[in-house]
């Protein structure tokens, strides 16, 4: 069965969607990705959709689900490279992906994830401080 590859880069997981998605493929991706987050204890998930020409409400929901599920497992999700036409269509459709972080490209997305981890670290230190 067709699958979308997930790459591990340090504490992050990287997914580049290069094909047009149909519903079952998207569901498989959600499943695989969440299992990978749990297995690798990843701190962040980066999904590059710059090659995707259509995001409809189902695909939007999958992206939202991945973000919410990852968050429960303490991983941040960033979607990068959304095409202008796709963004305009999603807004018109009434979908704003409120729980998902976004960035213009992989580079900025990585920076965002690194910042998120940085904040987490300092937060945790602060937490210990208050314990002591």
């Amino acid at each position, binding site marked *: 069965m067709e699958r979308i590859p997930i790459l591990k880069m340090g504490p992050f997981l990287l997914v580049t969607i290069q094909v047009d998605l*149909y519903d079952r493929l998207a569901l498989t991706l959600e499943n695989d990705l969440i299992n990978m987050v749990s297995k690798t204890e990843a701190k962040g998930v980066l999904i590059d959709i710059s090659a995707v020409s*259509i*995001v409809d*409400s189902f695909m939007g929901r999958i992206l939202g689900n991945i973000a919410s599920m990852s968050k429960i497992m303490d991983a941040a999700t960033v979607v990068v490279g959304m095409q202008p036409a796709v963004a305009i269509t999603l807004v*018109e459709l*009434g979908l704003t992906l409120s729980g998902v972080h976004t960035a213009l490209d992989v580079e900025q997305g990585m920076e965002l994830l690194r910042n998120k981890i940085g904040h987490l670290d300092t937060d945790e230190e602060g937490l210990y401080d208050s314990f002591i």
Partner: protein
Amino acid sequence: MIVLSKEKLPIQREQDVILFRNRIKELATKTGMSLVNQTKLITAASELVRNMLRYGGGGVTQLEIVSKNSIPGVRLTFKDEGPGIPDVQQAMKDGFSTGKSLGLGLPGAKRLVNEFDIKSEPGKGTTVTITRWKNGL
């Protein structure tokens, strides 16, 4: 309104959707539609074809290039012989869903096209027709 070309495409499996989307793109490109309008049309079609597969058990789509006042456009018809929609008005509301979706399918699709028509008879099936004009907003 003049019909310039007409073809039919049956949709039975999820994989058929990809072919269907690509065919719409070809037709829309032929009319000179902008990328944003193409994307809106294909996204709307994607919502409707999912409904057709999920609730209607598949069906037949019809793809047409039409022209009104010498402005070209693409008209798509989705016809299934499923259980139909008992309350169309309710189904057209944002956030209403009988399945486990966001309930943006029908109302969202309507917002993405210029003309939207839905006819449904419980027990007989549902037919949805959408049109997007080349320069429509």
